[in-house]
């Protein structure tokens, strides 16, 4: 029997018991729809969090440091070597210093990030009030976090912009050439901006200040890779030189792992609905076979091969799976899109950015379709095999 005719006959068989078929398909639709809905929520939340945590550009940046090693130094020579690697587009340097910020008679501890222009660009560092430091300016400019000014008891921070600030800095020993720490006393800076961070006390200053005072090694070298997909290759190359590297994917891997577990949990919840649907489908197919025993026996007598009977029943259950899969995916998608639209509209109304809490990757939707098809086939396997075992003569005998 031709496969096309088997499909035609299977389709007609499903149409004979319309309401039964509709209810069975509806079960699969609910099952597939539930998995789609819940797992897409998982994907959506993951996407939302990931986008919040990292900006797109961050994927191009690898942080390099010397780790705890006292032998390996991240100095100019190392910087040049790394910059010469073909995958490297450019690098940004940072020297971390400890120190005190002094205003009048008050003083407070802070971390000083002495950086160059590339580093500032990579870090997207900016001031919330005033400007960010111009690392190439002749003046020694400084930007402070709000926390520093709070600790110093400054009430009107904005009024301080443009004034001179004095600081004592310490260059720790592993940054210097002779391995002795160095002090810079009363370095003068011009305050150009303030960052609204009330939690951590820190300051940005030009790297030149640290280097002029004897810092020859870097704390961190930010490396921009030319091809995002080659990050791992670049990290390996740099790590083989003895340095430690960090990349946003390390953080993402942790986030991904959490959401991986969440998606599985949501998927299992959806799968429970699917199992109920499958039991219903199995029941329908088995009853359908029992009702058609004589039909099957007689088909065999007039020339149906075992293959034809097996395919006929399998195709019927596969069709239920396919219909359930398609409608489940479409309905799941429509509901998700509606909720996304409602939430986005509300978010915009209340002055927030539009957000989408559901996201269905195309491969997941495709996977669900294949899953529905497979489930259809597997559920039909037992009734189909049982149909194959029908003995044609039994049909005649029981007349």
């Amino acid at each position, binding site marked *: 029997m031709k496969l096309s005719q088997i499909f*035609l006959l299977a389709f007609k068989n499903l149409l004979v018991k319309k309401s039964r078929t509709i209810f069975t398909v509806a079960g699969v639709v609910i099952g597939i729809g539930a998995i789609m809905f819940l797992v897409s929520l998982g994907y959506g939340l993951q996407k939302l969090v990931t986008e919040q945590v990292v900006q797109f550009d961050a994927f191009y940046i690898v942080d390099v440091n010397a780790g705890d090693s006292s032998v390996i130094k991240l100095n100019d020579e190392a910087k040049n070597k790394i910059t010469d690697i073909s995958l490297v587009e450019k690098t940004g340097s940072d020297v971390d210093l400890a120190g005190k910020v002094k205003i009048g008679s008050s003083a407070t501890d802070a971390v000083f990030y002495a950086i160059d222009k590339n580093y500032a660009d990579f870090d997207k560092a900016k001031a919330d009030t005033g400007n960010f430091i111009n690392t190439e300016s002749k003046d020694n400019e400084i930007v402070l976090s709000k926390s520093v000014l709070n600790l110093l008891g400054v009430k009107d921070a904005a009024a301080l912009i443009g004034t001179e600030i004095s600081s004592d800095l310490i260059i720790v020993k592993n940054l210097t050439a002779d391995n002795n720490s160095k002090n810079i006393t009363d370095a003068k800076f011009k305050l150009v901006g303030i960052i609204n961070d009330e939690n951590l006390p820190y300051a940005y200053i030009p790297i030149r200040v640290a280097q002029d005072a004897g810092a020859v090694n870097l704390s961190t070298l930010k490396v921009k890779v030319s091809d995002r997909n080659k990050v791992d290759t670049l990290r390996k190359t740099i790590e083989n030189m003895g340095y430690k590297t960090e990349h946003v994917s390390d953080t993402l891997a942790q986030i991904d792992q959490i959401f991986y577990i969440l998606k599985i949990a949501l998927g299992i919840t959806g799968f429970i609905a699917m199992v109920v649907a499958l039991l219903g489908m199995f029941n329908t197919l088995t009853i359908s076979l029992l009702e058609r025993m004589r039909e099957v026996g007689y088909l065999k007598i007039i020339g149906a091969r075992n293959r034809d009977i097996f395919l006929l029943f399998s195709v019927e259950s596969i069709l239920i799976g396919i219909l359930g899969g398609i409608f489940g995916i479409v309905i799941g998608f429509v509901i998700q899109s509606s909720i996304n639209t409602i939430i986005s509209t509300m978010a915009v109304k209340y002055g927030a950015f539009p957000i989408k809490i559901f996201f269905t990757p195309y491969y997941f939707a495709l996977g669900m379709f294949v899953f529905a098809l497979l489930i259809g086939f597997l559920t039909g396997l037992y009734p189909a095999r049982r149909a194959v075992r029908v003995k044609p003569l039994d049909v005649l005998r029981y007349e």
Partner: protein
Amino acid sequence: MSQETIISLKGVVKKFEVGENDIAALNGVDLKISAKDFAIIYGPSGCGKSTLLNVISGLEEPTSGTVDIRGEKIYNYTEDERSKFRSDKFGIISQTSNWVKSLNVWENVAIPLVLKGATFRESKERALAVLQEVNMEEYANLAPAKLSGGQQQRVSISRALIRNPWIIVADEPTGNLDTHSADLVMATFKKLNSKSRRTIIMVTHNLIYLPYATLKIGMKDGIIESHSVVEIAKELEKEVKVLKGAK
């Protein structure tokens, strides 16, 4: 009339296991049926009529003995080969018609061709032609279940005819029909035998139809007793009385 033997049975025994006992439904049957025969197998209930028909049509493998259909020993074949042989050479009709409920009359008639690899569309013309042969073409688009028993049986005959078989086997084809419908079915068989030159082998309880036969095969206790029609008629009469008494 040609006497070419088309079916030949030698020493056919068929035993069924019933609990711990073997019961012989056929107890050494020798039989020859020629191409032009209208053979009627008759006898009381449990005499082995249907078993004999099933053995001939390749549905029931005998415990011993040989079955030749046009020189081919069909029980040397595998089950699948035999199934193919049966669907190629035999048209099979049973007491009640078994329909594929999702298909209408002509589609059901076309099924044997579709099983053979044709499409429904390709088979439609041939299906309508065989329906015409039994005067049922006007019902082609109805659901078979909507037809009367006699009409269904005639559709069933056209389904048996669609692949132009050598032999038509029918097990109690008139068993569920009123006299008028049964007469129509018998007339159809007669026409197929005499005009379309098909071999007919039919099992029946009803001795009224014996005059249609060119070969009468009387059975009792699993063996052929061709010369005891009267005796078998008496047995059948007794059976009828028992049935009436039961009512």
